[in-house]
C-alpha cells in the first residue's frame, strides 16, 4: 500500500478554490500532485452523476471545493452541492463503496495554505482507504 498513488478527481469552484490554488502556486506552497482538476463556475453545477462517473471510471476519490456557506457567488450553489455529495455517498454505500471517497470542503476565499491543507488531507484520506476496488 506504501506505493499507492491515488487518482483523485477535483471539482473546483472558479471563484474560491481556483483563486486559492493560484495563491498557493504563487506562494510556492507544496501539496500532493494526485488531483485531476475540473473547473466549474459554481459547485451548484456538480451533479450526482459527475461524482458517480468519476468513480465508475476508476478514480479513487472525488474532492469538491466550494465557497464558504454564505459566500457562494451564486448564493446557494455550495449548499446544493453539499446535499448532492450526501446523496452520492448514500448511492455509493448501496454499491458497497466507502462514501468517504467523496469529500466536499469549503475554501474561505483565496487562502493558498488552506487549499494545500485540504489537498493533503484528502490525499491522506484516500491513501488510508486504499485503491478503489473498481480498479482502473
Amino acid at each position, binding site marked *: 500500500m506504501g506505493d499507492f498513488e491515488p487518482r483523485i478527481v477535483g471539482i473546483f469552484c472558479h471563484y474560491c478554490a481556483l483563486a486559492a490554488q493560484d495563491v498557493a502556486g504563487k506562494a510556492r506552497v507544496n501539496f500532493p500532485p494526485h488531483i485531476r482538476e475540473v473547473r466549474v463556475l459554481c459547485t451548484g453545477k456538480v451533479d450526482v*452523476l459527475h461524482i*458517480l462517473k468519476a*468513480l*465508475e471510471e476508476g478514480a479513487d476519490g472525488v474532492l469538491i471545493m466550494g465557497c464558504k456557506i454564505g459566500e457562494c457567488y451564486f448564493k446557494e450553489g455550495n449548499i446544493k452541492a453539499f446535499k448532492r455529495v450526501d446523496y452520492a455517498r448514500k*448511492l455509493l454505500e448501496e*454499491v*458497497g*463503496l466507502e462514501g468517504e471517497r467523496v469529500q466536499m470542503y469549503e475554501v474561505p476565499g483565496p487562502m493558498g495554505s488552506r487549499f494545500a491543507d485540504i489537498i493533503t488531507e484528502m490525499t491522506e484520506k484516500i491513501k488510508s482507504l486504499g485503491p478503489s476496488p473498481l480498479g482502473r
Partner: protein
Amino acid sequence: MIVGERKPLNQIRAMLEPYRKILILGCGECVSVCMAGGEKEVGVLASQLRMLYKKEKREIEIEEATLIRQCDREYIEPYLDKIYQADVILSMACGVGVQYVGEVAGERVIVLPAVDTKFYGANLDAGIWAERCAGCGNCILDKTAGICPIARCAKRLLNGPCGGSQGGKCEIDPEVECAWQLIYDRLKERGQLELLEDIVPTKNWKPSLSGGPRKVIREDVRP
C-alpha cells in the same frame, strides 16, 4: 402525476441475478418529474450497477434508454429492436409502464420493475410529493371543499372527522393533517358550513378497484 420511488439497489440486484444483458428503460413522464425513473435516474442506476458488477468482476452488459411514455404503444414500438437485444428490461416507469412494455413487446420479453409506484400526488415543494387523489372513479370534491377525504383521510370517512382528529392532526401521525379539519376550515372560510349538514350516503366503491380492473372507452376517437 403518478409518484414513484426507486427500489433499493439490493432488491434490484437480486431481481437481475440471472441475466447478463440488461436494458434500463426510463420513462419521460410522471416518474421523470418525481425524479424516480427519468433519464437522469436511469444514468444513476446504470452507474451504480456498473460499479457493483465491476467490483464483483462480473461481465454484465448494461444499456440505457429513456422513452417519452411507457404507457403508449407508439412510443414503445421504436425501441423494440433494443428491447429484443436484451436478456431483461429493467423498467423505471410506474407499474403501468412495466406491464405495458411487456404487453407490447410480447410474452417472451421479461420486464422487471425498478420503481415502487406510490400514489397520485402533487409536488408541494422541491423534493416533496404528497398524495392527493386515490383514483376512486367517482369524484366527490364538489362536496368536500376540493379536499379529498378518500385520499387524505386515513379512514376514508365521508362524514368526518373522527375522534382521532386532534388539534387539526390525524391520530396516525402528528405530521399528517386531518383532511376533515381542512374541509371544515375551508367551508367555514367560504361560509358554506351548511354543506356538512348533508349526510353523505355509503360510497359505491364499484367504480373503484372493488369493481375489478377499469377501462375507459371513447368511441369517437377509436379508429
